[in-house]
């Protein structure tokens, strides 16, 4: 039976650390697929102008293309070069919610994310995405430092 690991990408060094750790685990597991997920932060409950709404579909496509070409594809190529089975995904929504939901849908064993250096008042009040994930996840989570 093959195992699946969902890895959170964020387009920075911390995402790369998560991928590196996932590769080490995959080597230990053997038959293992990595699902690399990049989440574009988005909420259905924001306020927008009529013009923003009119352009929204177009912007969404542009955001997905940008995330795919700049973050997900390079990461997938790099992991594939190491001889691993890998897939990349881009989704809109809340980071913690989507990592958990994707892991559940994919039947993954574990979610791997790296700790980000979020600071400031916002993260103190609302908590970081990583902290939210750890608190709400229904799948085991590994947080790489």
């Amino acid at each position: 039976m093959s195992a699946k690991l969902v890895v959170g990408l964020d387009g920075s060094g911390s995402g790369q650390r998560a991928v590196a750790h996932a590769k080490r685990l995959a080597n230990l597991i053997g038959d293992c697929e990595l699902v690399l997920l990049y989440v574009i932060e988005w909420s259905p409950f924001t306020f927008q102008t009529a013009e923003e709404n009119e352009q929204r579909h177009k912007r969404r496509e542009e955001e997905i293309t940008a995330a795919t070409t700049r973050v997900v594809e390079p990461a997938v190529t790099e992991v594939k070069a190491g001889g691993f089975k890998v897939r990349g995904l881009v989704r809109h929504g809340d980071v913690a919610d989507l990592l958990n939901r994707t892991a559940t849908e994919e039947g993954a064993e574990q979610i791997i994310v790296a700790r980000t250096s979020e600071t400031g008042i916002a993260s103190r009040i609302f908590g970081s995405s990583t902290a939210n994930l750890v608190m709400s996840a229904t799948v085991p989570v590994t947080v790489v430092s």
Partner: protein
Amino acid sequence: MNKILPTAAAAIALGALPALAQEERGIDQVVNEAFASATGPFVSLIFAPIPGTSFPWIVMWLVIAASLFTVYFGFIQFRAFKHSIEIVKGDYSDPNDAGEVSHFQALTTALSGTVGLGNIAGVAVAVGIGGPGATFWMILAGLLGMASKFTECTLGVKYRNEYPDGTVSGGPMYYISKGFKERGVPGGGFLAILFSVFCILGALGGGNMFQANQAHAQIAGITGDYPGWITGIIFAAVVFAVIVGGIKSIASVTEKVVPFMGVTYVIAALVIILMNLDQVGAAFGQIFEGAFTGLGVAGGMVGALIQGFKRAAFSNEAGVGSAAIAHSAVKTKEPITEGFVSLLEPFIDTVVICTMTALVITISGQLITDPETGLFVLNEAGSISTVGDTSGVSLTSAAFATAFSWFPYVLAIAVILFAFSTMISWSYYGLKAWTYLFGEGKTAELVFKVIFCIFIVIGAAASLGPVIDFSDAAIFAMAVVNITGLYCLMPVVKRELKSYMDRKESGEIRRFKH
């Protein structure tokens, strides 16, 4: 074309600024007179009374339409109320559509175009002329208007244009032209053009001049009187920066601040109502009694009714067709779901927020009654006499100030922001109508945007009477065309409704969230 004359008048007035610098009131007066005489015939036509009565035919037109839609769709505003809230919450939204325009976003965008001065100044005008009884008719018009909004917004999504680059355009001009063609009814093209012309006038009137006018009244009330054109030029410069200069950050900041101002306003009103809980019963008494007797207002019961219906329509725009433009950008496979969402709009706007304003004004004791007869005392203009002789937004401001002396400052900020966000929304509606008529070119768009900014100056300079008359007339003229279109296309909405309800019943349409 009515709009050409005032534009020319404004251009002349603005060009003559240096020469008239010593006579600042003179500029306001020139603009006001030119504007009033240019728009007079149009206003008289729209508000012509039904022969033999004093009842304007246009008010009857809106009420009959809203009542008819209510009956035709089986009191949809009450039946689907719970389901509408579930849709806004996202319970029925496909997670794969994340990142697209949500129902909540379409609703709040449309609301930011309607919640504004209509709720603050418009209600004060209604209560100031029609007495507290106007509130009863306003609430009734709000409840009935939910069915009109449901009909037009469903059609807005169903017949919108989706372009290859993914952008969308929708609204009455599209559903009238495409829907009529589909049903084999002639005249759709002509009506769509007529609607667009009226929509441009509405954008310049209610969506622009009324806002500028009342924003100026509010600022002048705090700083002391000064010429309106100064406020007008400042507002015009900021709006110009956003719609022509493309400084989107101003618009998006406003979009984010306005909902909080709205919530602050409602909370302040609630606090005042709670502080005067013992008077709420009496206030409702005045509202019900006034609704059927008028309590001495000009025109009695009919006077109260006309004011209530007029201001409700002006505030929630049900049947006018503007919301259909805003709602059409939503991502959904089912046009009817946007109809459900949009019916919440008149409820929030009129039934909740307008009623709050009316209650605060009634409770505050700003309206002067004769202690012997219990009837309202009228002034020379036929309005109810108020403490300090206030009207419009200054009446609301004075009413709130009886509880919190500092509230006029908060209200001034709210009014400026509401006025600004409504102007931005209406500049979009007007532009959509303009590009429908003249095509989507950079030059055509720029011409409209410049005209729009000039009208801000005229609106701020003119006095309330002519501005409010023209604003109402232009917005109601949109309703004449739009409702004609809705009558022809309502069977399409009924089919959509039946199909959706059947599939919801059978479980084909399912909730994604539990």
